[in-house]
């Protein structure tokens, strides 16, 4: 049945896309290079959320808190300490994962909806701290002009750096999805009670998934700083969490790359529509409603349904 982990047929288009992305920057105006890099960052963020939402079935309602916490950690290490870049690069996602662990410890004890509500309140607490602690975090101004080493000084070099780190992260996430850990997580999403009955410590498993997801959200946070050189409280505001959630829904959370596609669409919308209106949250609401009624499986799910499985990204429904 050709059930190998790296199915070459589906791997080749990905390789082709990767190569195209490699040669893009010199061909594109700066602005588009920037937007595509932003899609990479946001795409990774959405993929990280999908580890717990699509795979784990958890209501991780405030994912941006971890993304922002990591971005701030990275920014603070770069501006307030003389530690080398790579330490910040590793420490920031770890800080996000530790926060994920602490918040997760409380959340996994609760049923789904309460899980989501507690997350929103704890995440908002982190936002409030960042927002209020003016002399440390810069409050609502944020931190700007974060210094980058020479190899990340130009937009093009940042683009390549982000592309490569993102590709590695996605590959790791893919491997995790295909591992016993990932398949067990799917089983937990389907039926936690039965999982307990077959000897799986459901809470510990969910907690581990949260730690992994928040770590990758942290990676995305670091990449955001590399691209933007600034941080601001909106990075951990609940509106962004809602956006990430919609990206997963929009792209299709039962597919591997769906959330990435959703992120690309959302970034485009925010860039090309968002600038004309102050009512961005209203647009978000409308997108959400349209999704629920017309594309319950998301764009990727819809495409797979229509054109079969030759579209990039293997189907993630169940262990296939």
């Amino acid at each position, binding site marked *: 049945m050709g059930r190998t982990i790296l199915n070459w047929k589906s791997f080749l288009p990905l390789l082709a896309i990767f190569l195209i992305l490699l040669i893009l920057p010199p061909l594109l105006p700066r602005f588009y290079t920037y937007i595509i890099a932003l899609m990479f960052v946001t795409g990774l963020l959405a993929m990280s959320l999908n580890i717990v939402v699509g795979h784990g079935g958890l209501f991780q309602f405030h994912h941006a808190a971890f993304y922002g916490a990591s971005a701030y950690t990275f920014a603070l290490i770069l501006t307030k300490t003389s530690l080398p870049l790579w330490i910040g690069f590793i420490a920031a996602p770890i800080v996000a994962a530790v926060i994920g662990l602490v918040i997760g410890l409380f959340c996994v004890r609760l049923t789904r909806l309460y899980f989501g509500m507690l997350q929103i309140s704890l995440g908002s607490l982190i936002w409030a701290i960042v927002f209020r602690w003016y002399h440390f975090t810069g409050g609502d101004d944020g931190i700007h002009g974060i210094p980058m080493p020479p190899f990340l000084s130009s937009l093009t070099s940042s683009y390549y750096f982000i592309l490569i780190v993102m590709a590695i992260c996605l590959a790791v996430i893919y491997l995790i999805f295909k*591992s016993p850990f990932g398949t*067990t997580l*799917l089983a937990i999403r389907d039926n936690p009670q039965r999982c307990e*009955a*077959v000897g799986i410590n459901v809470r510990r498993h969910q907690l581990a998934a949260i730690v992994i997801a928040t770590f990758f959200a942290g990676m995305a946070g670091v990449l955001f700083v590399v691209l933007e050189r600034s941080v601001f409280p909106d990075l951990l505001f609940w509106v962004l969490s809602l956006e990430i959630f919609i990206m997963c829904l929009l792209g299709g959370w039962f597919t591997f790359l769906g959330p990435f596609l959703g992120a690309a669409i959302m970034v485009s919308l925010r860039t090309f529509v968002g600038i004309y209106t102050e009512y961005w949250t209203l647009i978000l609401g409308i997108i959400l409603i349209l999704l629920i009624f017309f594309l319950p499986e998301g764009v990727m799910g819809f495409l797979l349904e229509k054109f079969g499985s030759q579209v990039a990204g293997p189907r993630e429904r169940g262990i296939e």
Partner: protein
Amino acid sequence: MLKVEGVEKSFGEFMAVNGADLTVGKGELVAVIGPNGAGKTTLFNLITGQLKPDRGRIVFRGEEIASIPPYEICKRGIARSFQIVNIFPRLTVFGNVQVAVISQQRKSNTLFHPAQGMAVEETNRILESLGLIDKAWNTAGSLSHGDQRILEIAIALGNDPKLLVLDEPTAGMSPEETSATMGLIKGLAQERGLTILFCEHDMDVVFRIARSIMVMHQGRTLIQGKPQQVRENEEVMRAYLGEE
């Protein structure tokens, strides 16, 4: 192997289990019978840890298990099926059993090793012995009710249990399916030397295959004994004739 003594469980004011005793010896096929609402499912939930008893002892292979979580009980060798189909509807049939086998092999937490090559042999062996191998790649939720019931048992077997607890394995089955399934269970018990505790409403089936029968009524154990003893017991007769 399993000894339940004076176990009680109430839901609010209502005593669902009110003094249950049960002994299951190694290699035995033990049935629990009793009218609807007698507390059979509640008793099974107490044994496998889904519920915690208010009082009483549950000892499995010399160890008190009354207060440990279900996944720990499973690791000690008790696997179960549920009265109401309780499978992984969106996973494949193969995936349903594989999850249990991977858990049994203590590999559920393995991160960087593809799952698809894992536990294949064991999983296929179970699917084959239960006649589900042809449907291995179907989505579990799409199976017929009868097949889902069999899958219930297959998942439990994935844990390679020392004691298999089956809560009405034939619930909702036709009489033909029922006898076929019970035949299957009996075959499994002989083949694998399994110890099985089950409950079942079809008396003919119970008296035909069980070595020992425990009768529950209104949460209490009336008697546990050989089929012959149970058949002749007056209290049981009364319970079944219904004096409400």
